[in-house]
């Protein structure tokens, strides 16, 4: 019967998916290992060389004193040890707002993070309510953006239009702005845009964080950045939904092609649960 045919075909689908996923992560790991491993060894060697050079030149320097100074946490709190320059505090209001936004959107750069226990506990509760709130808001905004475009144009045009305009608005334009104001190269800027909007958020590049001490930011900068992140995320939600839409159509098409006699009772199914008792 149809059920049996379906179950035979679909029971291993989750296994296949799982295996594919593991393979994907493994392959990625190997590739990163190959790409990055060599570079790091070079960097370490160079740095050690510099350190030894310093220790040799200045004989009054002793090992412990120097090590004590190279405190790992200082870069975390954004302290500048260069000369007499004082960087603006990391935790002033605007940057705290950016931090709150990165927590709630789950980007989580990590260049700033709460170091006090109270801060950490608050962070947990803040995220507990903020993340669902963020999801709800993005959902509604995305729905609106979808509604506006759904009237006369065909589905395909909607997809195409949203892809193209979004890429221009949320990748190309910010790339220009960041190149201008952050002093990054084009590739660094695009990398940053992608890592932020996908909510991966490594934090190796963060806009508005004085990566170059000579840069000064106009006042509207942080507002612009915040709105870029917000609308970019909403747009991305739209794009992913459209992609899933397309994938579903492809899936239905493939299923029809695979078993054309199959009565397609439930349209729009993709990952089917096995139609047997679990």
């Amino acid at each position, binding site marked *: 019967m149809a059920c049996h045919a379906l179950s035979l075909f679909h029971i291993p689908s989750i296994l296949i998916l*799982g295996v594919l996923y593991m393979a994907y992560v493994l392959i990625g790991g190997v590739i990163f290992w190959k790409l990055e491993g060599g570079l790091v060894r070079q960097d370490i060697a160079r740095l050690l060389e510099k350190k030894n050079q*310093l220790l040799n030149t200045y004989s009054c320097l002793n090992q412990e004193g120097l090590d004590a*100074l190279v405190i790992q946490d200082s870069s975390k709190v954004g302290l500048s040890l260069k000369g007499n320059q004082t960087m603006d*505090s*990391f935790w002033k209001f605007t940057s705290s707002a950016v931090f709150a936004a990165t927590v709630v959107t789950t980007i989580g750069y990590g260049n700033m993070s709460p170091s006090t226990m109270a801060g950490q*506990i608050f962070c947990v509760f803040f995220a507990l309510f903020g993340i669902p709130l963020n999801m709800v808001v993005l959902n509604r905004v995305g729905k609106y953006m979808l509604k506006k475009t759904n009237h006369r144009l065909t589905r395909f045009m909607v997809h195409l239009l949203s892809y193209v305009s979004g890429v221009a608005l949320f990748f190309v334009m910010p790339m220009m702005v960041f190149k201008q104001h952050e002093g990054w190269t084009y590739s660094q800027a695009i990398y940053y845009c992608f890592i932020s909007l996908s909510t991966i958020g490594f934090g190796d590049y963060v806009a508005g964080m004085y990566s170059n001490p000579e840069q000064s930011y106009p006042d509207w900068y942080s507002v612009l950045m915040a709105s870029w992140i917000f609308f970019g995320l909403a747009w991305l939600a739209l794009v992913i939904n459209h992609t899933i839409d397309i994938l579903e159509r492809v899936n239905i098409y493939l299923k029809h092609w695979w078993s054309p006699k199959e009565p397609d009772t439930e349209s729009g199914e993709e*990952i089917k649960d096995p139609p047997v008792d*679990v």
Partner: protein
Amino acid sequence: MTINTLKREMSSGYKSWILLTGFILFYITYLMLGALVFSTIERPVEDTLKTDIKALKEEFLNQSCVNATSLDNFLERVLQANKYGISVLPNSSASSNWDLASSLFFANTLVTTVGYGHTTPLSDTGKAFSIFYALVGVPFTMLVLTACVQRLMHLVTYGPIGVCRRRMGLDPRTATAVHFAVLLLLVVLGFFVVPAVVFSQIEDTWSFLDAVYFCFISLCTIGLGDYVPGEQPSQRFRALYKISVMVYLFLGLMMMYLVLRSFHRMADLHGLTAFFQLPHCDEDAEDREPIVKAGSEDQNENDLNASAKPLDPTSKSSYNAIQR
């Protein structure tokens, strides 16, 4: 007839506008308040650290013959390298940040969008590859997680709720609420408390609270990166440890999605989603019937109908919750 429907549409249109604006305003206020609290808590600590470091530097320069500029240059390079996880301190081991296990770990943090940032690609090739890898990997991960959760829902949610209803004769709303409370408790115990205990034992510098904080930040995919397991130079069985953390992260993410989905279902039944005009858990109104229907043969089939939604957009976090 048409005027009434028009009126209804208009009023629901207004309501939807107002709701949207309300949500956005609330969201902004929430962010502002959070910013205020963070600022108040963290700023004094930061100021103290600042003055301490300055004093340390002064003391160092006074004691030694090093001049300020060469020290500054050195420090700049070192701090830059530090950001990429490279340390020149004597007790840092020879183990790389990019050996196979760590690279695997990195790839995993990339596709789950946790993104700790304790190691980041340094080369341009690495960066470009990360982008393309994530472009495919992130949706793929979501797919896998959703597929797993859809199946798990049978085992963990629909099954027990059905049992609850039939054995104890509870009405659907109470059954789902009770089930959700139990599920939440089990998940918190199993994926926060127990792992936190384990982490605080393995990691020397982490307290129990730090470990809980780490678990939460990771499982929400925020991934600040201030705590990353397996980074101690003296870590034994480092590769095995990192891989187990990877597995924990994946399973934990799955459970979070499951809890979210169960919560969504419960909110559905209690009319919360309708109240806030949020998308329902399932599109058909009849899908709520399986919990209402008493017949046991229909149970599983209707559960199937209810859950065989293609990658129900509402089930994913953060991105798609746009109802078609």
